[in-house]
């Protein structure tokens, strides 16, 4: 009788709002670490939102300099987007491989992620170098200042992510799939996926909306 009552209650109230649960003790370290990192990522996204707000306000202030539609190349942006999207996928494959302790697929997934991230960085660096060489550096107009700071900040995050990725490969190589290494791998996967989410905002707002004539 009490069993069926309990089961029925659990179905009606999946979030256990109405039940006083005996304190289950602290959450496992895996959950605490990943949750803390999740809060960091959200604060990072809040920081990016300030750069987005600055870009939205300043995108029209070109000071007789170039407009977005004159300097953005859709083809490069499309390649960058596909690179980052595929790297998010291969990062997911690498984290599955880490969970099942498969070294070969882990190294392969991480290596492909690294190559795709580097292709993204090279394309972005060449775009920046080209703009500066044509005299359209960040000091040319308020629009270019906000463009360079927003896209450059994302690029810095990707560079840090690539360094972290190589560190994770080295740690798995040296220490194996230990619990602490797996926790770091989980945080790295969260970081990389979050960067891709921010890039969705960047290519939509900066390149596609800002590139409209």
């Amino acid at each position, binding site marked *: 009788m*009490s069993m069926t*009552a*309990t089961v029925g209650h*659990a179905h009606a109230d*999946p*979030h*256990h709002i109405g*039940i*006083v*649960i*005996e304190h*289950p003790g602290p*959450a496992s370290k*895996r*959950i605490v*670490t*990943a*949750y803390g990192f*999740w*809060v960091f990522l*959200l*604060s990072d*996204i*809040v920081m990016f*939102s*300030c750069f*987005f*707000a*600055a870009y*939205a*306000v300043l995108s029209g202030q070109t000071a007789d300099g170039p407009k977005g539609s004159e300097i953005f190349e*859709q083809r490069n942006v*499309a390649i960058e*987007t*596909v690179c980052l*999207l*595929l790297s*998010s*996928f291969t990062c*997911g*494959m690498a*984290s*599955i491989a880490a969970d*099942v302790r498969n070294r070969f697929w882990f190294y392969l997934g991480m290596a492909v992620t690294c190559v795709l991230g580097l292709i993204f960085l090279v394309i972005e660096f060449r775009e920046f170098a080209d703009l500066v060489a044509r005299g359209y550096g960040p000091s040319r107009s308020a629009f270019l200042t906000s463009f360079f700071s927003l896209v450059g900040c994302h690029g810095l995050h990707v560079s840090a992510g690539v360094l972290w990725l190589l560190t994770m490969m080295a740690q798995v190589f040296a220490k194996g799939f230990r619990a602490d290494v797996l926790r770091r791998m*989980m945080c790295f*996967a*969260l970081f990389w*996926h*979050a960067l*891709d*989410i921010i890039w*969705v*905002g960047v*290519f*939509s*707002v900066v390149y*596609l*909306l800002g*590139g*409209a004539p």
Partner: protein
Amino acid sequence: MSDQTHIPAGHDLAPGEEEQHSVGERILGYVVGLVLALLLTATSFFIAGTDLVWQPSIPVALIVLAIAQMGVHLVFFLHITTGPDNTNNVLALAFGLLVVFLVVGGTVWIMSHLNGNMPPMDQIMRMRT
């Protein structure tokens, strides 16, 4: 009778962590996410450069497509769900989104009003002389 008060707490999931699935199912989840994200990206780039749709609708369409793609990333790559084991993650995300909308929406709102209420720059220069 007393075991009724000893209901074990449902274990929580860390962000990015999936419920128990086989490897094949997990890979399938990522493949579905990748295909959806690629479709949405292709649509965004197509819409931005096309003459086929009513031009003033393009910015709205781009923003809607971007939000949809962020949702796809959150569900299929970061595994944020509405399940009871994800409550903490979703609440943190909701608070983050609140701050993002306050910052971006508030900035655009206030700055556009300031811009609208300011005389053009050449008039300010004339008032000074």
